């Protein structure tokens, strides 16, 4: 999951900016640290060679330099930030070979649901994608906030109930990667890690065909079971019944996840909101 070992263009862009920015700053940070330690050592009270200059308390030239150095650095870095923000905007297209793959990700308590609306399949905690193709993610949450993040593919993004965020990525090399939730979401949060299988563009249709033959069906009823709080250790797959499922979730036509079971909780005087529709 090393950020400096990117497996796609977005992560490569992010980590290049990360490394470049560090080097730009090191150019002034290292000499400054050396100067601090050097001045502190040389001007120690016990050093008879150091000249005591109690009246050196203002110098226009020094002031000019000390305001300029950080200002120039920030101008340079500001340029990097401006250009980088636009080039690496999560919603910006990431052209790839072959047709883009649409993936709709839903963070559940505490698992990831990946819906492939065009392939009419869905998976839990496993994301299988073809190498080289543009991946168009739409993301939302069934209940609390989470953050979708595959470190080696780059750019994390929030998932929020009732809202849809967009993210485009591409994986360049076949192999196994790992993703995770990067926003604390409750007791099962650490178990929201998911596998990312990057397969060859030829193997992807085969995987889709195999997956589509499964007996399990994802519809509003099975989704409501998935929404219950819990950890999923297995890697279940589903046929997708209604390709509009994601829209129903994002538009809150399917109400948000129920949260903890409150069988014995007497002190919950207000409905809190599940009566909203």
């Amino acid at each position, binding site marked *: *999951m090393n*950020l*400096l070992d990117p497996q796609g263009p977005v992560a490569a862009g992010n*980590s290049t900016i*990360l490394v470049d920015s560090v080097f730009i*700053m090191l150019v002034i*940070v290292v000499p400054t*640290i050396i100067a*601090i330690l050097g*001045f*502190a050592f040389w*001007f*120690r*009270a016990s050093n008879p060679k150091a000249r*005591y*200059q*109690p009246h050196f*308390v*203002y110098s226009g030239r*020094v*002031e000019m*330099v*000390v*305001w300029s150095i*950080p200002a120039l*650095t*920030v101008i340079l870095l*500001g340029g*990097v*930030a401006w250009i*980088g923000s636009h*080039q*690496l905007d999560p919603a910006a297209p990431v052209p790839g070979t072959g047709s883009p793959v649409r993936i709709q990700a839903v963070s559940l308590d505490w698992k990831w649901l990946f819906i492939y609306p065009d392939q009419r399949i869905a998976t839990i905690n496993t994301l299988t994608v073809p190498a080289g193709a543009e991946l168009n993610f739409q993301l939302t949450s069934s*209940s*609390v*906030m989470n953050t979708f993040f595959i*470190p080696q593919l780059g*750019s*994390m*993004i929030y998932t*929020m*109930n009732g809202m849809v965020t*967009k*993210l485009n990525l591409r994986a360049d090399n076949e192999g196994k990667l790992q993703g995770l939730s*990067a926003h*604390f979401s*409750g*007791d099962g*949060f*650490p178990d929201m*890690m998911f596998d990312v299988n990057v397969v060859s563009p030829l193997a992807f249709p085969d995987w889709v065909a195999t997956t589509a033959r499964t007996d399990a069906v994802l519809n509003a009823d099975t989704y409501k079971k998935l929404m219950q709080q819990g950890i999923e250790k297995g890697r279940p797959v589903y046929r997708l019944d209604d390709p509009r499922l994601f829209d129903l979730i994002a538009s809150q036509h399917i109400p*948000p996840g*129920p949260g903890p079971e409150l069988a014995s*909780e007497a002190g*919950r*005087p207000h409905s*809190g*909101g599940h009566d*909203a*529709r």
Partner: protein
Amino acid sequence: MLGKLDWSAIPIDQPIPLVAGAVVLVAILGVLTWVVVKGHLPYLWGEWITSVDHKRIGVMYILLASVMLLRGGSDAIMMRIQQAVAYQSQGYLPPEHYNQIFSAHGTIMIFFVAMPFVIGLMNLVVPLQLGVRDVAFPTLNSVGFWLTATGALLVNVSLVVGEFARTGWLAFPPLSELAYSPGVGVDYYAWSLQISGVGTLVAGINLVTTVLKLRTRGMNYLRMPMFCWTTLASNLLIVAAFPILTATLAMLLLDRYLGFHFFTNEAGGNVMMFMNLIWAWGHPEVYILVLPAFGIFSEVVSTFSGKALFGYRSMVLATMAICVISFMVWLHHFFTMGAGPDVNAIFGIASMIIAIPTGVKIYNWLFTMYGGRIRFATPMLWSVGFMVTFIIGGLTGVLVAVPPADFMLHNSMFLVAHFHNVIIGGVLFGAFAGFEYWFPKAFGFRLDERWGKAAFWFTFLGFYVTFMPLYIAGMLGMTRRMQHYDVASWRPWMIVAAVGVAVLSIGVICQIVQLVVSIRNREALRDRTGDPWDGRSLEWATSSPPPVFNFAFNPDVRGEDAYWEMKARARQQSLEHEVPEYQDIEMPRNSPTGFVCAFFATIMGFALIWHIWWMVILGGIGAFATFVVFAWRDHDEYVIPAEQVAAIDRVNIEERRSLVSMAGAV
């Protein structure tokens, strides 16, 4: 009768909080018994609890911060051990407990350690530096302190009665809403911060008024010590930002208690509105903490270099620039919400702009040392350690202000390392520097230098061993708040970090030993001159500890570094003190208002958390009645007769003759 409160609130099945709570309870009862048996209670009540003296209140703030530092530090140790052992296992802390610990750690360290520590130092020092007798509103000052203590108390009560929030220290909805956090944890969190937030706000109003309205003769704005400037900036931020926190938490509480929908998923609630509001407070908050630390370093570096602060006006400008810009950058805390590139870039660049005045400050301290005659007493060690450490934290801070880099680092262990880098390396080092520097002023004897230096080196090294591995873990994709994990490459760094926290703990132990050793050797460490460091500002012009009225005469200030100039003038013109004409001094009477008010606020807060409505009304009426009684008071001042003032001041002048200063020597 007791709302939601019943026996199930006591976590009988969880030994760790129960034992910890029991130990604390025994310790408190032990201290109380000792106080009562030894007959110290009247002294404690009369001289401290009801005191409206800014110095005593400052000391009590710092005491509160120190005690809470131990609590927050214990949480930190537990977290680091958990992450070191919880590789492919559950570790020793179940999620519901671990999640409370990191939430409590953040809440405590920010609100009940960093805040009271800096507010305590400002309280103690600023009126002395301004050459005045007290803050603008002495009784309000006491109220502010005791309300902060109430908040701290409620957080600690949650350890054994009920639970604390399991949502992280900012309690983001919808996780913190009733649907997903039905327990009392979030209520403990919110009511503690509401009550202590009122305390912080009144402290802010008080200090702003003090700096703006109560300065001694000749102390115009551009002659104020840098610590007064940073106090002004920091407290302006408190006055502007804390109402946002109060309003945001009030909305969350309305959601939780009365079924409102400010931040819920349903019925038009908006989670991101909470994010925006909480960070509109939260980002200024970090400058509220670090600006006073900058002020402390300015005083310390200048004093121990034997030079006036380099580029004073530039420093003032930089301080006020930080004060203003800090309100314009909050969105950098959630670049990853998917706002457009323009929004992200603008807030990214605005965040970087804060680095300019901050960088200028570093260079000005650097040039203050240049040409100085630097004495490496403990406060100076903390300051040099700060400068080096803070630059690294600044670098990583600017790095996460670059949106594309933040898309990789947001919420990661890298971020955790960054903000500990600036809060420990900046605020805590500053607080310790101030503690060592002003301790002799507050108590009249110095702290033991050997233990002080040991504390510095262990803390300094411990910091690097703890947090550098977290930077690396972040670069390896590790996110924060993981109760357990299965990624092998993270493991070694978590183990190193656990070793680091052990080294840090040794630093804290050295600090405690230093305090004990110094109190025992106080006669040997006694400072009779009131000016142990060859100081430059007015707090050193009075005796240590200062008399209750601070100064027999309001000092007459004729330039920057007021006391240094007095010393220089005295030396050059060998002027002896003319025999001054002493006058009666009126000082505010002590008042139990603050303590009584906080007592009722505690009852009210506890009752609100547990829905015990009759007790809420009782507490509310009690707190209000206390104010009314105070407002109807007849005599709020007493007179210290001139003869007594004269006697106290003559002793101080006598002792000061022995003083050897570099002032005026060159």
